[in-house]
């Protein structure tokens, strides 16, 4: 019970009338807290209002409170250290954010407005930012996780920390007893803090920040009261005694320049931070509650509020073409209120509404993420976008693009067009510049244009050593970047977003199956220097591959990825970007699809033959040892037994023979069988042979038996038969390269006697009569084409 007493003492310490010191423990974007903060400031009429925000952003207070500023807005901070700039964090403000309300109300009361946290550049401010950069300072995770939260959730029947928060506190929005609300939040946060290990408080940077806040508070208390502090509830227990101990010195912040911009922010962006300890999700909903409470000058009328939310939601859905019947709306409301009553709440809260929509609208089997719930969440998220005065400056991504250009000595100081020749294979700094140009191109800024250089997407001139670019900074480019600002604060983030959205576009256009195109996006991403950041994109590509049912596309994609994995030069990937598992996914998928080969429709035959050859070549490559070739061979072996069309049969049998899985006799048998058998099309007679020549022509000379069989069959034909089949035979033998053709000729010479040149050289003895006939044929051909208006066919291709 020591603990309980400890929590109670925090409760009591929030109002220290003796010292004229008042503390408001808050949670970001909580209207209930905002309400209480406003009441507190109205009651106390402080001389100073101290707010938990970076001390060096204090210069932005005026613009935040500018008449033209309309939340949601955010202060974006960019920290420059040793010539690199990074977006440190966003500090978003909604109309219903306690911090914003404190500023507005404090100014109204004529109080001095002070920010008390460490400077934005301090490393303690980003100690929690691990995975995702560019977040708001993540200091509210304690509200969402941990044993204490889980225990309470279990006790009170809440599914998570958010529901718990609403259940305990948000339900008291506008209540006249706001003092108890603040006191309860104080005690709750004291308990949360108690359940947090001191090491965590230290390592998360909280201790350093709190030391700073204590020092600033102590100064303020000395100067002029009353003093009101508005800070995250978690910090409050550490702040109640500020100014009572030995005088604290303000720790000095780190040497770094912080550029900060007030930017327009949106509920969408704010909600995307949900789950990163950045306050309450679905800001549109809380904004709505805030306005209802203000309109009622007290508690929002819960019943009517729920009713209005439901009917507005229904109206929005109707507009989108998903009408909700009146009885269904009634059922939503009934269920929401029933749930709220069962859960012991004053009125239907956010989770009650979410549950109720699911209860009333879902008809059938659904997964966890279900369309009606998604629609409701979108509705509750809201779409509001704020406004900032023109004097607010430009957003981080523009700054990022400029800084990067400067670092690469790409002149963007004015709008004139310049050229640059880049030695991309030998000079790392040139490669970096190329990546910058490529990124800007990918982003559609029209900043740079590649005049000459390798084209890795279409495999043209890939061995070129130089790239030539022309470029010019323009308002157009800047406009485009500002447009992209919502998708990232720096070029790589924006590029990544763009790749994802292009992929989504392909999917929407029904081209989600086109994994060759999607893997092309990967190439673009690598060229733009996204490197390790492409990991999530690799995951989506893996999904696409896994869902693909086209043998040929999967093979071509696998080849492309393998090519990238092995590539040097601009296409070289960083070591940490691991392509092995992606290749393995594609390989596995391909093997899976092998079982489709027997049923190959005619129009896909050639494509699949080529894919098979790609695979044979790939597996023969020494760099392919990451693939378990026995799986491929085994799958191909199954195909051979499953009665595929002749050409495929030849191809797969050849692979089996090469792999030592089948005897040469089998392929000989199949070739002979095809020859002798009944066929729909003449060409099918040599289908097996053609297939074999396509994937493994060397069988012809590696194994005497094969050559013998082919030779016997061809020479055993009647003249007529031979002539009929000749075009197909020629076609079949085109898969041999000239060297192979010579080799074959040598062997045939050995069998039939004679010299190689008898078979391979193209010396022809033509008579004048032949020539004459030829000329005549050509003439009549030309005439015939002309008659059909097809003369252009005769023009030589450039």
């Amino acid at each position: 019970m020591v603990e309980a007493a400890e929590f109670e003492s925090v409760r009591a310490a929030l109002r220290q009338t003796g010292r004229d010191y008042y503390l408001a423990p808050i949670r970001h974007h909580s209207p209930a807290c905002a309400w209480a903060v406003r009441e507190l400031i109205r009651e106390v009429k402080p001389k100073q209002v101290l707010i938990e925000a970076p001390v060096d952003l204090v210069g932005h207070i005026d613009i935040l409170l500018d008449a033209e500023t309309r939340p949601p807005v955010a202060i974006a901070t960019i920290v420059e250290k040793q010539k690199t700039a990074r977006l440190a964090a966003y500090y978003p403000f909604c109309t219903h954010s306690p911090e914003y309300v404190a500023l507005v109300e404090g100014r109204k009361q004529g109080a001095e407005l002070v920010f008390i946290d460490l400077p934005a550049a301090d490393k303690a401010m980003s100690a929690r930012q691990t995975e995702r950069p560019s977040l708001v300072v993540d200091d509210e995770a304690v509200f969402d996780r941990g044993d204490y939260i889980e225990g309470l959730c279990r006790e009170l029947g809440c599914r998570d920390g958010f529901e718990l928060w609403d259940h305990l506190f948000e339900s008291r929005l506008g209540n006249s007893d706001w003092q108890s609300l603040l006191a309860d939040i104080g005690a709750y946060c004291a308990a949360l803090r108690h359940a947090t290990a001191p090491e965590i408080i230290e390592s998360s940077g909280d201790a350093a920040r709190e030391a700073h806040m204590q020092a600033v508070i102590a100064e303020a208390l000395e100067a002029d009261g009353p003093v009101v502090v508005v800070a995250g509830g978690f910090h409050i227990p550490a702040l109640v005694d500020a100014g009572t101990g030995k005088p604290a010195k303000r720790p000095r912040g780190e040497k770094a320049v912080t550029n900060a911009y007030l930017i327009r922010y949106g509920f969408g962006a704010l909600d995307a931070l949900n789950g990163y300890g950045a306050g309450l999700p679905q800001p549109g909903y809380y904004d709505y509650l805030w306005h209802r409470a203000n309109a009622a000058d007290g508690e929002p009328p819960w019943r009517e509020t729920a009713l209005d939310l439901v009917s507005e939601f229904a109206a929005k859905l109707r507009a989108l073409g998903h009408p909700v019947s009146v009885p269904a709306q009634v059922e939503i409301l009934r269920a929401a209120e029933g749930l709220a009553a069962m859960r012991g709440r004053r009125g239907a809260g956010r989770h009650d509404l979410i549950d109720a929509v699911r209860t009333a609208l879902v008809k059938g089997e659904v997964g966890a993420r279900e369309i009606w719930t998604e629609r409701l969440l979108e509705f509750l998220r809201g779409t509001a976008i704020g406004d900032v005065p023109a004097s607010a400056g430009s957003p981080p991504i523009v700054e990022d693009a400029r800084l990067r250009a400067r670092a690469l000595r790409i002149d963007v100081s004015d709008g004139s067009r310049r050229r640059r020749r880049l030695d991309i294979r030998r000079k790392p700094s040139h490669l970096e510049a190329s990546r910058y140009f490529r990124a800007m191109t990918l982003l559609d800024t029209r900043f740079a244009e590649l005049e000459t250089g390798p084209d890795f997407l279409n495999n043209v001139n890939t061995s070129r050593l130089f790239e030539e670019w022309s470029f010019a900074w323009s308002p157009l480019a800047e406009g485009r970047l500002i447009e992209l600002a919502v998708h990232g604060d720096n070029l790589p983030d924006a590029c990544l977003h763009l790749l994802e959205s292009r992929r989504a576009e392909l999917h929407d256009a029904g081209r989600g199956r086109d994994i060759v195109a999607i893997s092309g996006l990967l190439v673009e991403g690598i060229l733009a220097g996204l490197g390790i950041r492409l990991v999530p994109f690799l995951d989506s590509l893996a999904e696409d591959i896994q869902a693909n049912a086209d043998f040929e596309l999967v093979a071509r994609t696998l080849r492309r990825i393998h090519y990238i994995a092995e590539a040097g030069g601009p296409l070289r990937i960083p070591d940490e970007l691991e392509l092995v598992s992606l290749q393995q996914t594609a390989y596995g998928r391909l093997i899976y699809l092998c079982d489709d080969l027997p049923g190959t429709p005619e129009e896909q035959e050639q494509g699949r033959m080529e894919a098979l050859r790609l695979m044979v070549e790939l597996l023969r490559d020494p760099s392919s040892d990451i693939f378990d070739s026995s799986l491929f061979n085994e799958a191909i072996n199954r195909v051979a037994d499953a009665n595929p069309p002749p050409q495929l049969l030849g191809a797969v049998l050849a692979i089996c023979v090469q792999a030592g899985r089948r005897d040469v006799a089998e392929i000989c048998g199949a070739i002979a069988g095809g020859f002798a058998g009944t066929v729909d099309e003449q060409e099918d007679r040599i289908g097996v042979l053609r297939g074999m020549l396509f994937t493994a022509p060397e069988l012809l000379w590696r194994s005497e038996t094969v050559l013998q069989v082919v030779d016997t069959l061809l020479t055993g034909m009647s003249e007529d038969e031979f002539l009929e089949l000749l075009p197909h035979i020629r076609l079949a033998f085109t898969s041999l390269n000239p060297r192979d053709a010579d080799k074959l000729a040598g062997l045939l010479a050995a069998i039939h006697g004679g010299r190689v040149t008898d078979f391979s050289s193209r010396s022809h003895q033509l008579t004048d009569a032949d020539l004459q006939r030829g000329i005549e044929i050509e003439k009549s051909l030309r005439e015939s084409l002309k008659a059909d208006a097809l003369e252009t066919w005769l023009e030589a291709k450039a």
Partner: protein
Amino acid sequence: MDVTDVQRLPAEQRFADELVRLRDNDKNDRPKGWQLSPRAVRSFVLGDSKLDVSQKFFGDDPLVDRCIVSLMGQQGLMLVGEPGTAKSLLSELLSAAISGDSNLVVQGSAGILEDHLRYGWNYALLLAEGPSERALVASPVLTAMRDGKVARLEELTRCAPEVQDAMISLLSEKTISIPELGPGQEVRATPGFNVIGTANLRDRGVHDMSSALKRRFNFETVQPIADREFEKALVARQVAERMAEHPRATELDEKVVDVLVAVFRDLRTGTTEEGATVATPNSVMSTAEAVNVAHAAALDAYYLDGAKTSTSHIARQIRGVVFKDDPEDARRFRSYIDQIAKARMKRDKAWSEFYKAAKKDLGSL
């Protein structure tokens, strides 16, 4: 049918003492016709440590809340989802808590006629006395209406469309007229009446629910258990229960359960724990199926091998039990074995035995 199923007492008897405690401590309002308040019903299903009430359904508390609130309204409650996700269990628990009676069940099948939803006759009495209250044999639905209780319709989609249509008028009118007893004779639903249906919509050989019928129900999809450790515990416990009649059979090794549950979860979710994607089969990869595989493997080990159940027994049974007759599924299973299981061979003996046996079973090592 499983022996244990037959012997199992209905929930209101199995947990009679819990129900008494909940009722005695129930401070909240009870809807008309309910034995407990909604909150106490929730406690019965999800547990209440203060009253020593056990948790019986796991994994989705808000779903239970929604079910209870649905049953307070005019709509019926329809639980859908794959087999083995505890739909029937939940339906039993809810009706036990709300009505104190989980026995008013119609088991859906092709053989169900409209009469099974309404009433039939005791023909001996009918011949002797003519139509009378005494000769009338009430259906579970009729009884539920008269007594203000919850009727349960198991596997509703297995009933013929006409029977489902009959359900629509029962649910919208909430009366059953009995013309044989005289003009205007009817049974009107008393407060407390409602219906819980269960259905597996993906089952083959089921009849689609008409949209008119769907409108009468609020739907809840019961998902397979999301928590891996809990699923393992549940499988181990249920196999142990089933093997109780073979006293000398030993318990399943943790490793064996681990491999089994991993395979089921990988194939069910389409993503392995390493994050690789795998093709999901059409066959049901439910916890209950996992129990069936483990049970078959245990029997196989016990009777045929006289050995402890190993992962090779699992591998041998999994195809027979799960991938019975879908060639596409066999193909998916093969690629799972080739690509996922094979790579795990070096993890430990359990996986390597599993791989080898599965490969052998697939017939091409």
